[in-house]
């Protein structure tokens, strides 16, 4: 029987929750990096002991942390712990995210008021380790761009073709900023990567990141001048079952969508959801037509609908949804579940996990039928990822 390691990023530190395959008893370690915003932590599929973390602060900027022992110890790549510090120029560039000035056309992006605004790096929202190489990792950043490191996070280079696509002047920040928050690597095609930006939309590369194309056909957003425009949609998150990589599910600002052709075309599958606004979405590890969302009341009221914390599950790939409530508060609950704060493990039965802005991390060891809180009182949860350990 394997186990699981749940990586939790919060507004005031990171926490690591571990359990055996039963997922009943949990060990909690943390806070790691106490007091810092931990936007995202994710383990390498090629080496589960390798974990990358995004540590950020409005005061001190961006820090990248790396663990090579499953989260027991951490260091900034390029500055190993305990290494004698030699005089001379600083050598650590693990927190340097410099936009590639060669990106053509070099553009500005749209500001909230419709004027143009220069790109300014703020933070790393999402880290996506390579499926095959532990030292290769992608970073989605605000203001939106995609970076890659091939030396374990010591140095970062932008993949300039994305901003060079030419639509940059139409990209605009959502309420959380102009962030590249979703990176999905296609396990069947190493050259294919999906990304999503709020608020620009989804993009795909089929040549390893050199060139990109928008994949937003079928999206409809009333808050942009042309609701069917190629660019400008506030995509909140995209999920894929690795066993069926051409099928994607999307939680847009409003609307839950699916694509059966690698994002070329989308159709709405919100069906009977009580509200189709939301942030998180994920897919069952073994049943590619089983998907999960947490409906949020509206874009003005970022908390769950009717004071009830409900995960909605569809076993039909959308349209037909059932509320999952066993073990979740069903009155006076006003939390949110952010876009990167839901994950699944690959045990049998599939485990589902999510964290709330109220600091609870809930786990289901039976694919969502019932839920228990692993922890109740953490700082607001920004991200949840799961490693299935063998």
């Amino acid at each position, binding site marked *: 029987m394997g186990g699981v390691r749940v990586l939790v990023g919060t507004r005031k530190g990171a926490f690591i929750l571990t359990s055996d395959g039963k997922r009943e008893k949990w060990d909690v370690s943390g806070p790691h*990096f106490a007091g*810092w915003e931990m936007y995202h932590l994710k383990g390498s599929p090629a080496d589960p002991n390798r974990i990358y973390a995004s540590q950020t602060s409005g005061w001190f900027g961006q820090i990248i942390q790396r663990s090579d022992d499953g989260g027991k110890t951490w260091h900034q790549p390029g500055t190993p712990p305990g290494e004698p510090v030699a005089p001379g120029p*600083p050598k*650590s560039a693990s927190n340097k995210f*410099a936009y590639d000035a060669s990106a053509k056309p070099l553009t500005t992006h749209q500001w909230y008021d419709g004027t143009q605004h220069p790109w300014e790096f703020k933070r790393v929202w999402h880290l996506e380790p390579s499926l095959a190489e532990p030292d290769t990792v992608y970073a989605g950043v605000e203001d939106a761009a995609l970076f890659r490191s091939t030396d374990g996070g010591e140095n970062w280079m932008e993949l300039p073709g994305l901003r060079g696509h030419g639509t940059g002047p139409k990209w605009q920040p959502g309420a959380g900023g102009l962030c590249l928050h979703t990176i999905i690597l296609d396990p069947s095609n190493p050259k294919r990567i999906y990304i999503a930006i709020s608020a620009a939309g989804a993009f795909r590369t089929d040549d390893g990141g050199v060139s990109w194309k928008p994949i937003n056909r079928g999206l409809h957003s009333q808050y942009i001048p042309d609701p069917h425009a190629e660019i400008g949609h506030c995509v909140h998150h995209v999920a894929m079952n690795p066993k069926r990589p051409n099928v994607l599910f999307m939680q847009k600002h409003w609307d839950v969508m699916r694509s059966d052709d690698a994002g070329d075309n989308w159709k709405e599958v919100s069906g009977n959801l009580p509200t189709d606004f939301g942030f998180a979405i994920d897919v069952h590890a073994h049943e590619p037509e089983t998907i999960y969302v947490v409906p949020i009341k509206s874009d003005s009221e970022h908390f769950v609908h009717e004071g009830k914390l409900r995960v909605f599950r569809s076993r039909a790939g959308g349209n037909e949804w059932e509320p999952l409530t066993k073990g979740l508060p069903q009155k006076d609950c006003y939390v949110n579940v952010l876009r990167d704060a839901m994950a699944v493990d690959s045990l049998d039965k599939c485990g589902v996990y999510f964290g709330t802005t109220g600091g609870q991390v809930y786990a289901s060891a039976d694919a969502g039928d019932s839920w228990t809180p692993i922890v109740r009182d953490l700082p607001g949860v920004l991200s949840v990822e799961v490693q299935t350990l063998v």
Partner: protein
Amino acid sequence: MIRVILPQHLRTLAHVGSEVTIEVDGPVTQSSVLNALEARFPMLRGAIRDHDTLRRRPFLRFFACEEDLSHESPDAPLPDAVASGTEPFIVIGAIAGG
């Protein structure tokens, strides 16, 4: 010997206590002090000043001898009391309370 006081989060990054001491060759200025600090603690590179422009991060301030030196030229001499090690050079988050 120059004394530098760091805010808590930077102490954690650099694995040091509240005050560190560094040696500075030549004129003692904000730039020379921060160059020496970053050379000794590379993990602080980018956390106090921008990597490329070397401008102070906007939410940090520099104090010494009960004066706010944040807007002084980076190449202006620091007070003699800092250069002699009598008083520390203080890096502080730009919020008074809250």
